[in-house]
């Protein structure tokens, strides 16, 4: 399934991008990409081969859930959990359904999180990976359900859980039902915690709102990627409240590390090794 998704995605990338933005007509546009950090055009190939890092400034590009699993899980060990993806539309919100289809097409996934079991350097774990390309990784009832069942499964089988967060927060289109997911997922984690089991979160860009205010902040060990935006309130909301500009690094992973809210910033070259090490220490 993983391979399928990846292949499908490749095709989509080729089809989806047109090359009008690039000045040189003789080079296919998808050879290049613009770095969100330094703004320079860089070879896509170079970015991909460096685990999605800008060769020019070191900025981390966002990874898709599929790419993340490929980075972390031992080859061939990831088995996705079967999930019943029945979308609820409790508000009967205009165009929500169309938005979901569009998000599915953009991300190649049925929802904003995937879950499954895998091995990481031989260590068993249940992992959930959020997908920012699906409605900015927002958490509605299906995302809450996928996470909760994965955590419950982990508690039952006495497995550690690793969650890679990437989310703008609770999904507005499902109203209060989205808000309730915060309590639901946190409750499942509280039980996992009570059973004496390990929960690791890896905060990736961006992690905000209701996700920060629930499972992202509950890890026994909280790791983050450098430069990731992590916070509760949106930057603009805070600036409006206090009527002044915020410093550039406010709500960055580095800021949180300094303030004592995360354990470590881990680069992509060492991420798998670090997780494996921590899993081994908690056997």
């Amino acid at each position, binding site marked *: 399934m993983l391979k399928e998704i990846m292949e499908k995605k490749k095709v989509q990338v080729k089809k989806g991008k047109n090359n009008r933005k690039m000045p040189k007509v003789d080079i296919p546009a998808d050879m290049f990409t613009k770095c969100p950090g330094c703004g320079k055009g860089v070879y896509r190939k170079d970015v991909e081969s460096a685990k999605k890092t800008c060769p020019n400034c070191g900025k981390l590009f966002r990874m898709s859930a599929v790419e993340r699993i490929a980075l972390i899980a031992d080859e061939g060990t990831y088995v996705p959990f079967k999930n019943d993806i029945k979308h609820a539309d*409790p*508000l009967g*919100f*205009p165009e929500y359904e169309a938005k979901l289809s569009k998000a599915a097409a953009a991300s190649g996934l049925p929802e904003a999180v995937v879950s499954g079991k895998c091995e990481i350097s031989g260590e068993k774990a249940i992992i959930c990976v959020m997908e920012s390309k699906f409605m900015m990784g927002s958490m509605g*009832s299906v995302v*809450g359900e996928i996470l*909760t069942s994965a955590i419950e499964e982990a508690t039952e089988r006495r497995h550690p859980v690793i969650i890679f967060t990437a989310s703008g927060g*609770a999904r*507005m*289109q499902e*109203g*209060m*039902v*989205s*808000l*309730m*997911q*915060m*309590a*639901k997922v*946190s*409750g*499942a*984690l*509280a*039980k996992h*915690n*009570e059973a004496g089991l390990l929960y690791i979160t890896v905060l990736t860009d961006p992690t905000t*709102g*209701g996700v*920060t*205010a*629930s*499972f*992202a*902040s*509950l890890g026994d060990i909280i790791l983050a990627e450098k430069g990731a935006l992590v*916070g*509760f*309130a*949106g930057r603009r*909301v*805070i600036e409006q*409240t*206090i009527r002044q500009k*915020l410093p550039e690094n*406010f*709500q960055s992973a580095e800021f949180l590390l300094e*303030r004592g*809210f995360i354990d470590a910033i881990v680069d992509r070259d060492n991420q798998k090794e670090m997780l494996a090490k921590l899993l081994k220490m908690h056997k």
Partner: protein
Amino acid sequence: MNAWEKVNMARGADRPTSQFYISAIFDSFVELHGDRNFRDDQAIIGGIGLLNGRAVTIIAQEKGINLQEKSLRNFGAVHPEGYRKSLRLMKQAEKFGRPIVCFVDTQGAYCGVGAEERGQGEAIARNLAEMMQLKVPVISIILGEGGSGGALAIAVANKVFMLENAVYSILSPEGFASILWKDSKRAEEAAEAMKITASDLFELGIIDEILPEPKGGAQNASSEMAERIKEKLENELNHLSRKSEDWLQKHRYKRFRKF
């Protein structure tokens, strides 16, 4: 009344706030201050009171009634230390086997520099997880505004009640309109679409019961409203206090697991 009118009533200057209900419902209230770490957040009133002789822990969001008090209480917008004070008092209640009653009335958790620096997200998250595990009965009542995660952080309860004209929402209607429609002036329309009134939320199963308000709103006969809340609390606590710790935990988990 439509949803927007209810938003305005819930925010109304004459709407009775938590401090009124605390003094009207409980005897011998003793306020307990501080999170033992940073400061006392006055957007939350915490303490112990007697409900017809039964000791209960009370956690209440308080907006303040005059301008001076409102500013002291940050208009009911809670900082991380307010949630940490709440959790401290809830764990204390658990230690002594006291039931917990929470009054919700906030536009939301405070969005500011200090709040972020001191881990607003972590403070709320911790409350959600810890409240789910409490071994004593927890009842939360939405009195006025229930704003987002800032409200939920004291509303992971066995029973969640809501005053007839209160609202409980994922975000303020203004914020919702500005995020989804890029136009905060469409707040009235947003309030309708968001399903934030007691009757909408009862239908969705988000709340367990609606507490009817006196004609025209709680401000018109506040003592009557307090009496109604008191009676409800007594009945529910009589019922919940007979349950085992395990039952209470499981009941709370199931209540939220269903969404």
